[in-house]
């Protein structure tokens, strides 16, 4: 039982990396990317391949995976992020499929559908962490990395870059006219988001010690999206909470020994329902604060008009009272 709870927590942490990355892209940047699973796969396979075929240590592969994912993010972001609209969503969806396709077909490098086995365990200060016997150790290790990432993000959003990014999300036109090069910031956000997912992927491959392309499905990306939407876009604590809730939901049938009764599709339908319902009733997520009411164009005009009407009304009242005072003669 304790082992199981630890496992859920470890998966929460690993998915949190993806969710935090999605949060940078979607929460801070206001863009929709559907390819976290693809970047996660990049991280996993970089670690898997470099560790098994080149005999690298885990830590440098973590960095290489991040850089590789970020590079790929920039490459896909350059053509799509220059444009307005939702092309990024489709292009990233396509990229996810392409990554899966390449992993499946590039036999000599990725071993195709068979995947990579016997990935060496991670070593910290000469201490090998066996994810099977020492779940707590692994949790602490990945938790520490997650903490660093969270600290980085919470600082990042307060920097000039972070504020510029949020400005682009709120009103791209206004940001552009304030001298912010929106494309650069969008691509930067996208690259950061991608590299975060890659961290999760690297950790995942030293957790399971064997990887295969079947893991990195579109469903994974949707789950990550669900975490961010549920917890609260743009809110780090919210995202972590969202990741925990979604992981709990997906492991609940196993935890309560009901996995034979409840078909696996139920939880996936539930994820879909969460997305729709949250968008309609609480788009800011569980922990998010409701947005300040920004007067939209129509709102401002409406307010002005209302003001004018009030003035006119007051004027009529004055005239009326004068009229009455003077006994009907103006």
């Amino acid at each position, binding site marked *: 039982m304790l082992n199981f709870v630890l496992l859920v927590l470890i998966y929460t942490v690993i998915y949190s990396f993806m969710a935090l990355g999605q949060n940078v892209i979607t929460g801070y940047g*206001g863009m*929709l990317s559907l390819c976290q699973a693809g970047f996660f796969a990049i991280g996993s396979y970089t670690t898997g391949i470099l560790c098994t075929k080149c005999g690298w240590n885990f830590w440098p592969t973590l960095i290489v995976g991040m850089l590789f994912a970020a590079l790929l993010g920039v490459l896909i972001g350059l053509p799509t992020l220059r444009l307005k609209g*939702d092309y990024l969503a*489709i*292009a990233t969806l*396509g*990229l996810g499929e392409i990554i899966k396709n390449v992993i499946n077909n590039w036999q000599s490098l990725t071993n195709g559908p068979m995947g990579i086995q016997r990935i060496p365990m991670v070593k910290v200060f000469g201490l090998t962490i066996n994810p099977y016997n020492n779940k707590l150790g692994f949790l602490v290790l990945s938790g520490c990395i997650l903490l660093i990432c969270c600290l980085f993000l919470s600082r990042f959003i307060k920097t000039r870059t972070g504020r510029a990014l949020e400005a682009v999300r709120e009103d791209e036109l206004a940001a552009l006219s304030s001298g912010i090069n929106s494309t650069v910031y969008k691509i930067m956000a996208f690259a950061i988001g991608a590299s975060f997912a890659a961290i999760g992927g690297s950790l995942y491959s030293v957790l399971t010690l064997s990887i295969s392309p079947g893991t990195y499905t579109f469903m994974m990306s949707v789950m990550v*999206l669900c975490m961010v939407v549920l917890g609260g876009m743009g809110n780090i604590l919210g995202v972590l909470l969202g990741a925990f809730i979604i992981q709990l939901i997906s492991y609940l049938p196993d935890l309560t020994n009901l996995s034979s009764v409840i078909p696996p599709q139920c939880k996936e339908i539930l994820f879909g329902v969460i*997305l729709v319902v949250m968008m*309609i009733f609480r788009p800011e997520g569980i922990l998010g604060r409701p947005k300040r009411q920004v007067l939209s164009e129509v709102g401002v005009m409406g307010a002005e008009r209302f003001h004018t009407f009030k003035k006119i009304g007051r004027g009529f009242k004055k005239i009326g009272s004068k009229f009455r005072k003077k006994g009907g003669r103006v």
Partner: protein
Amino acid sequence: MSEFFQHFINGITLGGVYALVALGYTMVYGILKFINFAHGDILMWASYVGLFTYNAIRGSHPTGAFSVFAFFVAMILAALFSSVLGMTIEKIAYKPLRKAVRLAPLLSAIGVSYILSNTAQLFFGAHSRKLEYPFDNTPITGAGGISITPHQILILVVSGVTMVLLMLFVNKTRLGKAMRATSLDQDASSLMGINVNNIISLTFAIGSALAAIGGMLVSLDFKVYATMGTMLGLKAFVAAVVGGIGSIPGAMVGGLLLGLLETFGVALLRIPLGYKDTIAFVVLIIILIVRPSGILGKNIREKV
């Protein structure tokens, strides 16, 4: 040369289906300015409904006139079903979000798509079902050794007729005019006495019906399964972007072009079959770099 024509025929039949599905994306995008991610899954549900009604009507009849009749009845029923489904989805999941931030309807659409594909998997299982040919599908070999299957003729005829009807509807009727007006400016058209809500519903109904027809046509060749709509929908969206999203003739051109590119890419450029699905996305990225407004799309200047 005959090989070229052979691939050309294969390409335009594939492209015809892409075009039918792309029309749904482009019409919705034209009016609501968002990608209806659930379009492919509406197609999948419609194909299931079509499959079941077709099997129920046909029973154990052999291939022939009655089976073809059953196929068309099933197709019409599937189209009706999917238009109702499309309208319902719009009312429940998209309408409350019309005034929300851009991202909201997109996320909601992904949720809907996910719900649809997983409920199908829950109800119908993960295995794929085959829609039997209602006619004898032996290829007819014509002049120059070019062969065409009756199925390809069916696709060409049905998609051609449907697209002509759609063009007539959009360009010649009052409702079509209202639709075009709504896509240009919702507020202005509602001031002109157009019921924008009804027009949006109608758009979803027509788009979904077209998807159902496309779904029935491909179900004969490929099989019917719960995730059949995902890839088809993605490619159809790429077709819509290639032709110029929001433009109805653009979707048709884009669909045909994508079908041809895929067929020729595999047959003549010798792109490995495993990477066939990659072609569409490479095309998408190239078109986004070279001509983001698409082939027939107008380059709209941004106004402040």
